[in-house]
């Protein structure tokens, strides 16, 4: 690696912002170009479905760094510009502004695009998806007291939008095709806690009911469910996940399988190209398998590892996957990626929404779900990282603090 190597970061979201800071932090002194198809400087996405929707005017939007930071750090910004292809043999990137940009190393932090529904009426006005700050602001404009919102998809994003919309006095119906909320993440008995949370807050939740069609002349007026129910809608938010962005990886001839395949060093199959964040199907040494995550932790920490390794390090990215969601006054956190849920050990009050639930495998903590127990979750994550052997009775006993359990398990 030469000090003058030109590093190009494609994707100026949260991961792209981390990449700039981490490359400079790791001592890279050569030129950096940051390319992003959004017109904005890098920002973190979690507030888009929460704080930014809960108050009129969407206060609280923060860029990770202001423009002066990028100038001071000699970063060339190409925002509102799309990378169209990578020619890996000549090490050049074709951009939508006509540039043919040479590189020494590339970091792909392109994230993903929202998964879209393909039903009659899908092109009507008033149907929103949520990925960017512009999406969030467009949704915020429809959050008017008394308006009818139908949320398609009872996952994290859909439920956070539902909770935020209730805070604004909007009538909300959630349509979920599966028999429970947050089915990708949660076991049924914990999902039921969130069902009652949303129902108590006035949301109509329709489980086992999918989307059949959108109705309306020009603008959406009704959502037709598979069950035959027709629901009045002034606007719709669809939250059914993302599709990882892999077109550039295809153009570069990289290995792809449910995202860009990378190893625990964030290296793709091309030695000059790295990838990090939502778009990677990465090897996790703790789990012994590849996985793709759509999460803040991964955008932050995998990217930092990728940047260090671009600068000549051999740092391994190995963390217990961890996600969180805020809905109303409830903070949900989940650590681990169990194949399924069984024999949950509950500490605290499950219906009272003040608990942490554990799943053990071979006497060790395999996964944990915390509801309004952030501090206990932090200890649980340490227990997982330490691969500590645990006693079921102690875990279930709220009289013995998690900190005591940590002390005795790791001493």
């Amino acid at each position: 690696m030469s000090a003058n190597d030109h590093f190009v970061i494609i994707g100026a979201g949260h991961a792209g912002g981390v990449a700039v800071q981490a490359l400079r932090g790791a001592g890279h002194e050569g030129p950096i170009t940051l390319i992003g198809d959004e017109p904005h400087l890098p920002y973190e996405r979690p507030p888009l479905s929460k704080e930014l929707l809960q108050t009129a005017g969407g206060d609280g939007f923060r860029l990770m760094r202001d423009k002066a930071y990028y100038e001071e750090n000699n970063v060339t910004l190409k925002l509102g510009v799309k990378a169209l292809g990578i020619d890996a043999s000549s090490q050049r990137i074709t951009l939508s502004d006509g540039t043919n940009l040479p590189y020494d190393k590339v970091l792909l932090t392109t994230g993903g695009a929202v998964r879209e529904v393909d039903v009659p009426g899908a092109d009507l006005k008033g149907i929103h998806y949520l990925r960017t700050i512009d999406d969030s602001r467009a949704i915020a404009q429809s959050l008017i007291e008394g308006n009818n919102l139908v949320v398609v998809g009872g996952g994290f994003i859909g439920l956070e939008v539902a909770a935020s919309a209730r805070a604004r006095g909007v009538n909300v119906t959630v349509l979920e095709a599966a028999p429970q909320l947050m089915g990708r993440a949660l076991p049924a008995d914990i999902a039921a806690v969130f069902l009652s949370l949303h129902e108590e807050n006035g949301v109509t939740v329709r489980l086992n009911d999918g989307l059949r069609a959108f109705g309306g002349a020009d603008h959406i007026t009704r959502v037709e469910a598979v069950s035959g129910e027709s629901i009045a809608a002034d606007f719709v938010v669809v939250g059914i996940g993302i599709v990882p962005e892999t077109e550039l990886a295809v153009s570069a001839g990289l290995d792809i399988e449910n995202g860009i395949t990378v190893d625990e060093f964030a290296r793709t199959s091309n030695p000059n190209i790295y990838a990090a964040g939502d778009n990677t199907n990465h090897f996790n040494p703790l789990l012994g398998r590849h996985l793709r995550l759509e999460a803040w932790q991964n955008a932050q920490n995998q990217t930092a590892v990728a940047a260090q390794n671009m600068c000549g390090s051999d740092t391994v990215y190995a963390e217990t996957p961890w996600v969180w969601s805020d809905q109303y006054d409830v903070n949900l956190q989940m650590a681990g990626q169990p194949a399924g849920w069984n024999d949950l050990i509950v500490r605290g009050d499950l219906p009272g929404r003040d608990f942490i639930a554990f799943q053990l495998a071979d006497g060790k903590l395999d996964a944990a779900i915390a509801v309004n127990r952030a501090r206990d979750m932090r200890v649980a994550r340490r227990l997982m990282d330490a691969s500590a052997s645990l006693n079921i009775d102690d875990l279930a006993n709220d009289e013995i603090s998690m900190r005591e359990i940590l002390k005795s398990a790791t001493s």
Partner: protein
Amino acid sequence: MSEWQQVASADDIKPDEPIKVQIGDDDIALYNVGGEIFATANICTHAFASLADGFQEGDEIECPLHDGRFNIKTGKALCPPVEQDLKTYETKVEDGAVFIKA
């Protein structure tokens, strides 16, 4: 314009179990570090999270959401993603009552 205000009883603040109090618009976290009481702004400088729900270890507090850490005594931001230091408040304990200057 800051003045001493009584905010808690020292017995309420156990080692490694910070609590939060509200003074006007200020959301404040109180910590017990080796028997001494310290106070910082409660909201993490990185994102909206209550540090009183975080994990205290000695004189460090870790944000419950993103693992950013601060020094409780100085407010100094210690590791990514936090960069901006926390505001700290002067404290004193008199007859078991905790006062802070806010």
